[in-house]
C-alpha cells in the first residue's frame, strides 16, 4: 500500500492509497469512517479488469482531493492514451467525480468497475484486531448498492450509487463506456452513510451536484472561518505561514457534537481522535480564545451537559466530573468499551472552571457563566469530594475500571511518564503536581466568578481560603529542596516523586508557585538539561528515565511549551517566554507550519532540525493551537476589565508584528509589536528567528492560503 491520503469533514473521513483505492483489512486503518465506524473497507477502481497507476495527487482542501491516474500495472508506464481523474470530497459520506479522457485518435470501449464492500469495524476493533459479533447483508435496491451490518438493534448501512447508467451487483458497480476520440466520459459516484447513529439518515450527502462542480458546505464555512479570525502581518514570513496553517488546521479539527448541531468544538486530532475530549478540547479552546472564542463556548456547553452525575465504576464517573472521551462505535454501543462517555481524566474538571473564567475575561459573556453556574460549582465540589484519593487534600487519580479504563489520567498518560529521579515508578493513587496547580487556579477563578457573576461572596471567600491553603501546603510538600524545583508527583505516603519535569512550567501558568521559588523554576526550565534550543523537554536530561525520543520522558511537546511560555510570562520572565516561543516557531518551519504532537529532545546544536516523533495523528489540536497561544504570550495580550492590554516582548528576528481585529468584549482591537528580545540563538538558516537581518518582504493583508 502506497502513501495514505486523508480527507475529512467533522468526524467523517476517508483514508485511501494514492490511487484513491481502499483495500482495508480489519487491522488496516484505511476506509471511509464516520462516528468511529468504518463505512467502506473496499473501494477499487478497474478499467478492463486492470488497476490504475497514480501519476499525482492534489490535496485541494482538507475535505477534497484529486487523483490523476493512468491504466496499466507495474512500474513502467506504457499507454498514456487514457487518463483518469478521481475527484473526491467528503461530507456525510463522500462524493467522487470519475472522469475518463481518451487522448487517442480512435474511439475506445471500456468496462469500468468499482468494487465496494464494508466490514463496519469499530475504530477500537481496528486498533485491537477484534472479531465482529453481528451479521452482514448486501442488497441491490432501486439501482443502488446497499451494504449493511446488523447486531440486535444496531444497524449501520452504506449506500453506493452513480449518476450514469450502470449494472449494480452485490460486489459493486459496472459501467459499459464508449468514449469518442479526444472526448471524455464522466460519472458521479455517491457513497452515502445510509444508516448510522442517528438512525436512517436517508443517505443525503452534504452537497449537490446540479451545476459543474460539487461544493461542499465545508468550503463555505472555511472561508467564513478565515474571514472572522484576526489578520496577522509581520516581517518574518514563516510566522505568517504558520499562523495561516494553524487557522486552516483548526478549521479542519472542528467537531460538532450531536447535542449541539451547528456549533463546533475542537476535536483532539485528525483523523483518529475526531471526537470530544475533555482535556484536549479545553486546552485547545484556551489557546484559541483570542482568535475564535466560539470554540470555548461550545466546549463549555457540551462538556457541561455531559458532566458526570452519578457513580459508575465502568466509566470512572463521579458527580461533577468532566468527561475524558466520547466515542460512537459498536463496542461503545454494547458497553464493551466505557466511552459513552468515559470520565477517566483528572485534569479536565478543574480546567473546565479555568476555561469558563478565561472565556468570560475575553468575551464578557456573563450570561453563559450564569447558565453554567451549577456545572462550575459541581466541578469545584468534585475536586474536594472525589479527587482526594490519597486523603491528604491533593488531587490524585486511580482508575476504578481496571480492564478498559485509563491507568494514567493526567496529560502525560504513558506508563512510564511519572517517575522518581532514579527511574522508579510510584504506586497509585498518584497526585501529579500540575493537577494541584489546576485545582488552585480553578478555585481562584471560581472565586472571581462567584463574586462577579453568581453574587455569592461567601462562596468566593471560601474558595479563596481553600486556594491559599492549597498553595501553602503545596509549596511545602512538593518542593524538592536539594534541587529547587517541584516534584512531579506525591505518593500516598507523602514521598516526593522527585524527577525534574516540564510540569513545573504548568505550575507557573497556574499561579500556585510561591514568588520566592519562581526564579529557581524558571532557571531550571531554561537550563541545558531542560531547554534543547527548540523547546523544553518533558523530562530533564540526566533523570533516570530520560530518553530524547521517549513519548513523555524527553520529547518536546509544542502544546506543553505554549503553556510553559504563558507561565513564564505570568511570573514576569518575558525574555524566557520569548525564547521558548522562538524555538518552537523555528521548529514549525521545518514542518511547513504544522507542528507535530512532539519532536525529539535532542540538542538543537546536534541535529540542526527537530526530529519528529512518529505519531499517527496530524494535525493534533493542541499543537495546532500552540502558535496561537505563543502569539498571545509574545504580544502580552491580557484582558483587563473591558480593555485589551498589549505588552509585547518579541524575539528580535520577528521584526514588526501586527495582529489586527482581535475579537473580545472590547469589540475588535489591533495589537502591534516590534522584536526587541535577544533570544540568544545564532543564525543557522536564513529564515530562523535568531537571524539578525530578517526578511523585509511584506505582504498585504492575510497571508495567501
Amino acid at each position, binding site marked *: 500500500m502506497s502513501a495514505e491520503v486523508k480527507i475529512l469533514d467533522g468526524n467523517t473521513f476517508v483514508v485511501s492509497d494514492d490511487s484513491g483505492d481502499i483495500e482495508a483489512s480489519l487491522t488496516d486503518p484505511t476506509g471511509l469512517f464516520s462516528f468511529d465506524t468504518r463505512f467502506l473497507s473496499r473501494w477499487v477502481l478497474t478499467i478492463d479488469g486492470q488497476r490504475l497507476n497514480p501519476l499525482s495527487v492534489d490535496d485541494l482542501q482538507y475535505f477534497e482531493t484529486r487523483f490523476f491516474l493512468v491504466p496499466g500495472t507495474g512500474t513502467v508506464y506504457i499507454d498514456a492514451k487514457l487518463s483518469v481523474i478521481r475527484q473526491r470530497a467528503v461530507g456525510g459520506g463522500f462524493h467522487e467525480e470519475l472522469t475518463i479522457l481518451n487522448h487517442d485518435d480512435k474511439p475506445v470501449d471500456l468496462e469500468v468497475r468499482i468494487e465496494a464492500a464494508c466490514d463496519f469495524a469499530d475504530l477500537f476493533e481496528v486498533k485491537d484486531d477484534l472479531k465482529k459479533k453481528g451479521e452482514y447483508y448486501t442488497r441491490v435496491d432501486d439501482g443502488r448498492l446497499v451494504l449493511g451490518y446488523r447486531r*440486535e*438493534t*444496531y*444497524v449501520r448501512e452504506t449506500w453506493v450509487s452513480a449518476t450514469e447508467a450502470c449494472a449494480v451487483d452485490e460486489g459493486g458497480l459496472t459501467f459499459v463506456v464508449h468514449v469518442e476520440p479526444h472526448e471524455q466520459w464522466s460519472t458521479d459516484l455517491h457513497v452515502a452513510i445510509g444508516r448510522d*447513529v442517528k*438512525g436512517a439518515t436517508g443517505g443525503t450527502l452534504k452537497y449537490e451536484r446540479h451545476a459543474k462542480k460539487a461544493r461542499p458546505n465545508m468550503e463555505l464555512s472555511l472561508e467564513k472561518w478565515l474571514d472572522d479570525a484576526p489578520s496577522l502581518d509581520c516581517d518574518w514570513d514563516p510566522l505568517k505561514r504558520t499562523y495561516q496553517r494553524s487557522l486552516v488546521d483548526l478549521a479542519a479539527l472542528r467537531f460538532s457534537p*450531536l*447535542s*449541539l*448541531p451547528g456549533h463546533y468544538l475542537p476535536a483532539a486530532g485528525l483523523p483518529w481522535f475526531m471526537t470530544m475530549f475533555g482535556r484536549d478540547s479545553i486546552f485547545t479552546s484556551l489557546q484559541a480564545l483570542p482568535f475564535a472564542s466560539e470554540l470555548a463556548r461550545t466546549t463549555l456547553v457540551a462538556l*457541561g*451537559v*455531559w*458532566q458526570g*452525575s*452519578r*457513580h*459508575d*465504576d*465502568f*466509566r470512572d*464517573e463521579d*458527580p461533577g466530573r468532566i468527561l475524558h472521551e466520547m466515542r*460512537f*462505535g459498536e463496542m*461503545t*454501543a*454494547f*458497553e*464493551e468499551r*466505557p466511552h*459513552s*462517555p468515559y470520565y477517566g481524566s483528572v485534569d479536565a474538571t478543574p480546567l473546565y472552571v479555568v476555561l469558563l473564567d478565561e472565556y468570560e475575561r475575553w468575551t464578557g459573556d456573563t450570561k453563559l457563566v450564569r*447558565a*453554567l453556574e*451549577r*456545572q462550575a460549582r459541581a466541578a469545584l465540589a468534585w475536586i474536594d469530594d472525589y479527587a482526594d484519593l490519597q486523603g491528604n487534600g491533593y488531587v490524585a487519580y486511580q482508575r476504578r475500571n481496571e480492564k478498559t479504563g485509563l491507568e494514567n489520567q493526567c496529560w502525560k498518560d504513558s506508563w512510564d511518564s511519572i517517575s522518581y529521579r532514579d527511574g522508579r515508578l510510584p504506586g497509585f493513587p498518584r497526585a501529579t503536581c500540575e493537577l494541584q496547580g489546576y485545582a488552585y487556579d480553578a478555585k481562584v477563578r471560581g472565586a472571581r466568578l462567584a463574586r462577579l457573576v453568581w453574587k455569592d461572596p461567601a462562596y468566593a471567600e471560601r474558595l479563596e481560603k481553600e486556594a491559599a491553603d492549597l498553595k501553602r501546603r503545596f509549596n511545602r510538600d512538593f518542593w524538592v529542596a536539594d534541587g529547587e524545583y517541584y516534584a512531579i508527583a506525591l505518593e500516598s505516603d507523602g514521598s516526593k516523586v522527585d524527577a525534574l519535569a516540564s510540569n513545573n512550567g504548568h505550575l507557573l501558568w497556574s499561579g500556585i508557585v510561591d514568588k520566592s521559588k519562581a526564579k529557581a523554576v524558571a532557571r531550571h526550565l531554561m537550563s541545558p538539561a531542560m531547554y534543547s534550543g527548540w523547546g523544553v523537554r518533558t523530562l530533564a536530561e540526566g533523570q533516570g528515565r530520560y530518553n530524547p525520543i521517549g513519548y513523555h520522558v524527553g520529547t518536546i511537546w509544542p502544546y506543553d511549551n505554549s503553556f510553559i511560555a504563558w507561565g513564564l510570562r505570568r511570573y514576569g520572565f518575558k525574555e524566557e517566554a520569548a525564547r521558548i516561543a522562538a524555538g518552537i516557531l523555528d521548529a514549525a518551519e521545518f514542518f511547513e507550519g504544522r507542528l507535530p504532537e512532539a519532536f525529539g529532545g535532542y540538542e538543537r546544536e546536534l541535529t540542526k532540525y527537530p526530529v519528529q516523533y512518529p505519531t499517527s495523528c496530524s494535525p493534533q489540536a493542541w499543537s495546532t493551537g500552540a502558535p496561537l497561544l505563543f502569539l498571545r504570550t509574545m504580544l502580552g495580550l491580557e484582558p483587563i476589565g473591558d480593555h485589551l492590554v498589549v505588552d509585547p516582548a518579541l524575539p528580535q528576528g520577528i521584526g514588526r508584528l501586527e495582529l489586527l481585529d482581535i475579537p473580545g468584549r472590547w469589540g475588535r482591537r489591533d495589537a502591534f509589536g516590534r522584536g526587541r528580545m535577544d533570544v540568544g540563538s545564532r543564525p543557522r538558516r536564513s529564515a530562523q528567528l535568531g537571524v539578525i537581518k530578517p526578511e523585509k518582504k511584506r505582504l498585504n493583508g492575510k497571508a495567501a492560503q
Partner: protein
Amino acid sequence: MTDLDKSLLEALAERSQEQPVTAFNGVVRFDVKDGDRVDQWYLTITKGIVTVGREGGEPDCVVTGDSATFDAVLSGKANAMAALLRGALAAQGKFILMTALQRLFPGSPGADGLPTAGYAERQS
C-alpha cells in the same frame, strides 16, 4: 413485556428536585413500545425541574424504544447513550434535551452499591 414502571419516572422527577437539569426548558416524550401498543409519557422540564405526566405540550424531543430498554435505562441497568448508539432507543428532535435528561438516570448498582460493569458483562 410489561408496562413501564411508573415509579422509575417518578424517581427521576424526584431526583430533578435535588439535582435539576441545569436551566433547561422543554418537553421530552417517551414513546414506550409494547408489541403494537405505544405508551406515551411526557417529561416536562421547567428550569431544570422535571414533571411526569400522560399528557403534555408539543414535544421538543421524542425518544422511542421498548419497555424493557426504558426500564433498564431508568433503573440504571443500562446506559442511555449506549442504548441510543445501539439503536435500542431512538431520539428525534433536540438531542440536547435527552442528553440533559440522562444525567438524572441512576448509575448501575453493584454489590457495594456502586456500579461495576457494563452492559456486555451483565448480559453474560
